[in-house]
């Protein structure tokens, strides 16, 4: 009896909690592993699409990780990639239909990038690296953790790009009218994708200044 209890891990053991928190900072998919950059540049011109994109990726990644983890012993290694793709693609179609039904305007803004979640390297990477060799519950946590690590970067970048690029947040005007009368203008550069790259670079800069062990030795 006691032996059995020892074997069973609590749901939020330290190891499991790390699965959730590590990707937020030290193992961040965007700023440390530099994956998923493409969509991070493309959808972050406004806060709302960044947020919706984050939710979509969290859903796809968590569910895909669980499904693949459940299938992991039954999938022949030779066709595992195509199986993973089928699972991700089905989930993405569900998300896409859902967005079209309930938030059509955002779905139009995100355009192809919802479909392109299929090719998001973070998802494939986590399926290969984690879900294929772990139980469903840790795989679920890992999926949520990585998607949130991806998501908070998107939201931060989207926040600054919308604030400085359009003077709005979530579509509402936040820069007061008086500023414009004084000659302030929205910065067109923030609307363009290169600025997202620069903002991600600044986040990486801050992150490394805080965590010295992230700096590679050359």
């Amino acid at each position, binding site marked *: 009896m006691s032996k059995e209890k020892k074997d069973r891990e609590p749901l939020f053991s330290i190891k499991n909690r790390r699965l959730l928190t590590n990707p937020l900072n030290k193992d961040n998919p965007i700023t440390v592993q530099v994956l998923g950059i493409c969509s991070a540049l493309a959808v972050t011109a406004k806060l709302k699409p960044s947020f919706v994109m984050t939710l979509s990726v969290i859903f796809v990644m968590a569910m895909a990780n669980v499904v693949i983890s459940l299938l992991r012993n039954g999938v022949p290694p030779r066709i595992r990639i195509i199986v993973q793709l089928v699972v991700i693609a089905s989930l993405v179609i569900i998300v896409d239909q859902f967005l079209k039904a309930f938030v059509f305007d955002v779905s139009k803004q995100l355009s192809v990038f919802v479909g392109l979640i299929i090719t998001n390297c973070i998802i494939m990477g986590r399926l290969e690296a984690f879900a294929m060799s772990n139980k469903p519950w840790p795989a679920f946590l890992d999926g949520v953790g990585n998607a949130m690590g991806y998501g908070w970067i998107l939201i931060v970048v989207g926040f600054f790009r919308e604030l400085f690029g359009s003077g709005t947040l979530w579509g509402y005007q936040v820069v007061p009218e008086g500023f414009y009368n004084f000659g302030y203008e929205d910065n*067109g*550069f923030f609307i*363009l994708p*290169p600025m997202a790259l620069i903002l991600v*670079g600044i986040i990486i*800069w801050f992150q490394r200044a805080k965590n010295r062990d992230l700096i590679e030795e050359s």
Partner: protein
Amino acid sequence: MKGLRKFIDKIKPQFEKGGRFEKLHSTFEAFETFLFVPNTVTKKGSHIRDAMDMKRTMAIVVLAMVPPLLFGIWNVGYQHYLANAMQPDFWPMVWYGFLKVFPIIVVSYVTGLAIEFAFAQSRGHEVNEGFLVSGMLIPLVMPPDVPLWMVAVATAFAVIIGKEVFGGTGMNILNPALTARAFLFFAYPRHMSGDDVWIAGMPDQLPDGVTGATPLGEALAGKTEGMAHIMEPGYVWDMFWGGIPGSIGETSVIAILLGAIVLLITGIGSWRIMLSVLVGSISMGLIFNAIGATPYMQVPFWQHLIMGGFAFGLVYMATDPVTASQTQRGKYIYGFLIGFIAILIRVFNPGYPEGMMLAILLMNVFAPLIDYYVLEGNIKKRLKRVNHAVESAK
């Protein structure tokens, strides 16, 4: 002078290690070496001993920028009064231009130097002199009516993102002054392009025969009248001496040539780069002349050299020793491609009238790659020679 030296020597200990203002050491050091030739000598390794340290180099570059600056100040006034159909004397024009240009210079220097000092202080570096040049280049590539806060934002962006994140002066990939200009160009296009920004205090109604468009703007519009206008001999002469609308320092080719002479005689600007930029642009111009499919392609190749910011970029931007290629053969490739691409962008891209800025920034990015392959090629050639010698010795 002696009193100043004494004063500095007196307060010096307080800024040394353990002194009261130890934290402000780099600020103090910057001012001391700015005022007096430093009395420290290099202690390790082999060095060329020369009075030409970085501060003197930068001072000469700033000196070389004086002709376009002075001309620019006058021209801002000249264009303003021309557009308002007035004909004042020489000094009122200079005074008007001075009131427009001087604040831009002050804003650029104050913003940039404040950031440089802050970074040097926090990193414990010495304050570097590179910004003395960038701070002067930035006003020269601005339109005269640019809002001052935009200059400040662009300067801050250029110094932080263009320079400090890479490790400060000498480590930057992109030319800071061009980074500032490109930033403004993409951030606030309304103030950086079009026909309405190149004359200070432009009235709503221009008098007959006066246009707010730059030659590049006219050429880009592609209309036959505009094309005919920029090819008139009188207007070509205007483009050469500089009495046309444009960025503050870019209009007068004569003033820029004066600066180029200073840079070439002192050996600070690389003649290899200048020459190859010329060759590159002339060859692209000749190719376009040979095709001649659009009115813009028929603009004579030599006319491209005096239009827009080409001459200014050629003399002051492309030759920036930090961001250009370091190897001699690399300099030829680097320069040639700048000239080639600049004319290509000008003629083909309707969105960006000034190809020179984008071409130089693009080649700044490629300069390290060019150097790498030049070095590799050299190593291979020498290895071959060694192997050959070994073979024949057998």
